[in-house]
C-alpha cells in the first residue's frame, strides 16, 4: 500500500538546467520504413511540450519508445540527466513516466478501479487483491477529476467516452507521475470535458510535472504548451517556444516542413536553396 503514496522514484533534485527527459538521436524502423529517424527532444520540469505533425509523422511512435511500448533501434534516453534503460512499459513506470494512450488502453471488461491499478494492484496482508481499498482510492482520484462519476461497479466498456477518458487520465496521475505523456487526450471529449483536461494540465504543470502533449488541435496546443516540436516523415522539423512563433508558422512547419526564424531547426527542416 505504501507505493501509492511515495513518489515512483527520488524527488526532483537535479539542477534547474537539467531536462527531465532528454531523448537523443532516437531511431526506429519497422520493416524498411524509418518511422522515427534521428529525433531528439527534451522536456523540463513544469513544462508542456506539444508534439505536432501529420498522421504517420512519427510522433506517436517516438512517444511509445519513451513509454516502453516500442524498443528503439538507436539513440539514448536520459531521465534527470542520467541515462535510462527503457525496454518495456514497466521500466518506464519505474522512472515515473506515465502515458495516456490515444486508444486509452483500458481493459474494457473490468471496472474503473481494476483499470486504475492494472499491473500495480493493492494487496491485502493475505496476498489477495484489496478491491475495497482500490475502490476507495479510485473514488478519491475520480472525485477530483470527474466529481459526478459514480459507476464504479461497471465494466468500463459501459462508460461514456468522457468517463473512459477520465479513467485513463486518473490512472496516469494516480501514481505520482513525474513525466506524463498525453496522446490526443481530448479527441473523444466534448467542450466542457476538454476544458477540464486543460485545467488539469495546468494544475499538473504547477506541480512540476513535465508533459508531452500530442495533439491535432493547434488552438489547444497554443493554449497549453510552452514549446512545440513538429515532426514530419519521422524527422524533427524544428522546435519553438509558442511565444516565438505564430499558429500559421507552425502550420507551415507541419505541412511544408518549413522552419520559421523563431524555431530551432531539426534534421527534418526543409533545406531552402540559398
Amino acid at each position: 500500500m505504501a507505493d501509492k503514496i511515495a513518489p515512483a522514484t527520488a524527488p526532483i533534485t537535479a539542477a534547474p538546467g537539467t531536462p527531465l527527459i532528454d531523448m537523443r538521436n532516437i531511431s526506429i524502423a519497422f520493416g524498411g520504413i524509418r518511422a522515427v529517424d534521428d529525433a531528439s527532444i527534451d522536456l523540463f520540469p513544469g513544462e508542456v511540450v506539444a508534439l505536432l505533425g501529420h498522421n504517420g509523422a512519427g510522433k506517436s511512435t517516438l512517444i511509445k519508445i519513451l513509454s516502453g511500448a516500442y524498443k528503439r533501434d538507436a539513440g539514448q534516453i536520459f531521465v534527470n540527466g542520467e541515462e535510462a534503460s527503457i525496454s518495456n512499459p514497466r521500466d518506464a513506470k519505474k522512472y515515473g513516466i506515465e502515458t495516456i494512450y490515444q486508444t486509452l488502453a483500458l481493459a474494457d471488461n473490468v471496472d474503473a478501479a481494476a483499470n486504475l491499478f492494472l499491473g500495480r494492484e493493492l494487496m491485502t496482508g493475505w496476498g489477495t487483491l484489496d478491491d475495497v481499498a482500490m475502490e476507495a482510492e479510485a473514488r478519491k482520484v475520480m472525485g477530483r477529476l470527474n466529481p459526478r462519476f459514480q459507476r464504479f461497479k461497471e465494466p468500463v466498456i459501459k462508460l461514456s467516452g468522457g468517463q473512459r477518458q477520465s479513467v485513463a487520465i486518473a490512472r496516469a496521475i494516480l501514481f505520482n507521475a513525474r513525466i506524463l505523456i498525453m496522446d490526443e487526450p481530448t479527441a473523444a471529449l466534448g467542450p466542457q470535458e476538454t476544458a477540464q483536461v486543460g485545467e488539469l494540465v495546468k494544475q499538473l504543470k504547477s506541480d512540476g510535472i513535465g508533459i508531452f502533449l500530442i495533439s491535432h488541435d493547434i488552438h489547444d496546443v497554443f493554449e497549453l504548451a510552452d514549446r512545440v516540436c513538429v515532426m514530419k516523415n519521422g524527422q524533427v522539423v524544428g522546435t519553438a517556444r509558442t511565444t516565438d512563433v505564430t499558429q500559421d508558422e507552425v502550420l507551415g512547419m507541419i505541412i511544408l516542413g518549413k522552419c520559421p526564424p523563431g524555431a530551432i531547426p531539426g534534421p527534418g527542416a526543409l533545406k531552402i536553396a540559398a
Partner: protein
Amino acid sequence: MTDTTSNQPVGSTATDKARASELSAVGRFLKATELDTRMLGMVGALLVIWVGIHILSGGLFLTPRNLWNLSVQTSSVAIMATGMVLVIVMRNIDLSVGSVEGVIGMIMGVAQAEFLIRVVGFQLGNPWLWIIALAAGVALGLLIGAFQGFIIAYMEVPAFIVTLGGLLVWRGMAWLITSGRTVAPLDTTFQLMGGGPRGSIGATASWIVGVVACVAVAFMLLNGRSQRKRFHFPLRPVWAETLLGVVACAAILGAVWIANSYPWPIGIVRQYAQQNGITVPEGGLYIAHGIAIPVLMAVAVGIIMTFITKRTRFGRYVFAIGGNPEAAELAGINTRWVTMKVFMIMGVLAAVSAAISSARLNASTNALGTLDELLVIAAAVIGGTSLAGGSGTVMGAMLGALLMQSLQSGMVLLGIDSPLQSIVVGAVLVIAVWLDTVYRKRV
C-alpha cells in the same frame, strides 16, 4: 443463459409509461441483491430441464439416487470446465484436455497397478501407491500444460493448432504406454476418488461439511459488508443480504439432505455388516451415502478457482488480458507468462479429472476422456464464457457442466438413442450461445 426474469416485468400488461422509467419490482430486487441475471437464468433453465425430465420419465429424475449419480457424473467435466474458463477468457482454446486426461489416467494406472508393484516392489494396499500415482499424474499434467503453454505463449503458435496437435499426440501416447491394453484394478484407496458407497463421506460428515459451508457463507457476507462499511461505500439492504444467506444455506443443506437420503444398496450393506460384525436388523440397515468424494473435490476446485479468478492478481490479469491484450501489455503485465500459467492450471485440472474418471472406472483405458474436450468447452460456453474473451465465471461453467450432464443422463433415463442424444446436446449448445448473444446485445 436465458433471461427469464426481466423479459416480463410484473403485471406487464398494465404497466403504464410513467412506471416504465422506474425499476420494476424484479429490477429493484435484482439491484438490491446484486445478483447476476445471467446466472439466475441458468439456474432457471436447469430447473426447467430437471422438472421436465422428471415428469417425462414418470418421476425417475428428481430422486436422491439419480441426483447423487448426476453429481458424481458431473464432477470430472466440471473440474476441467473451471480451467477452460480461464483459457477461453484469455481468447485461447484447449482442444487437448480429453487426450491429456487419457494419457495421465494411463500413467496413474500403470504407476499404481504395475510399475510401483513390479519394479519398485511395493505391496498391494501400500498407501504410497495412490499418493505417488496421483502426484505423478498431477506433475505430468503440469508439465504437459507448461509445454503446450510455452509453445503458445513464447513460440506464438495459435492455441487452436497446438492443442489440436495435442489432441492427437496425447491420445497416441496413451495408447503407446501399454500398447492399448487396459490396466485394472486400481488401488483401493485411489478408487475412493471415483465415488460409490465407499467413496462417499457418510451422513454425519456430510452434515458437518454442510454446516461449515453455511458458516462460511455467513462469514463472507458479513465480512464483505464490514469491509464496505469501513470505506463508507453503498451497502446492500439488510433484507437482501439475509435473503442471499438464507437461500445459499438452504441450497447447501438441501444438497446434503438429498445426498444423505440415498442409502447404500442392500448387498453392500450386508457385506459391510459382515466385515464389521454387525447384525443387520429386521428392517434392514440404513447407511446413507452422503456427499461423494469426487463431488467434494469438484466443489473444492470450484472454490479455489473462483478465489484465483476473483481475488488474486493472476486472475485479474487473465481477465484484463482477455478484455484488451494490448492494454494489459502496456500496463506492464507479462502476458506470455500469464498465458503459460493458465495452460499449466488446465493441465493440473485435467490430471484431477483423470484421477476421478479412472477411479470411477476402476481401470485405466486409452479411451479415457475421449470427446471430453468438447463437453468441457460446451460447459464453459453454456455457462456464459464468451469466446470473444474477457468474460466468464467458474460458477457458471460448473453449472453449465451440470446442465449438460443433466440433459445427457436425463435422455438416458428417457431411453433416447445415443445418436439422438448427440443431436440434442449439439442443438442445445448452439441455442444457448445464441440466447447469450441476444442477452449481451440487450444489456
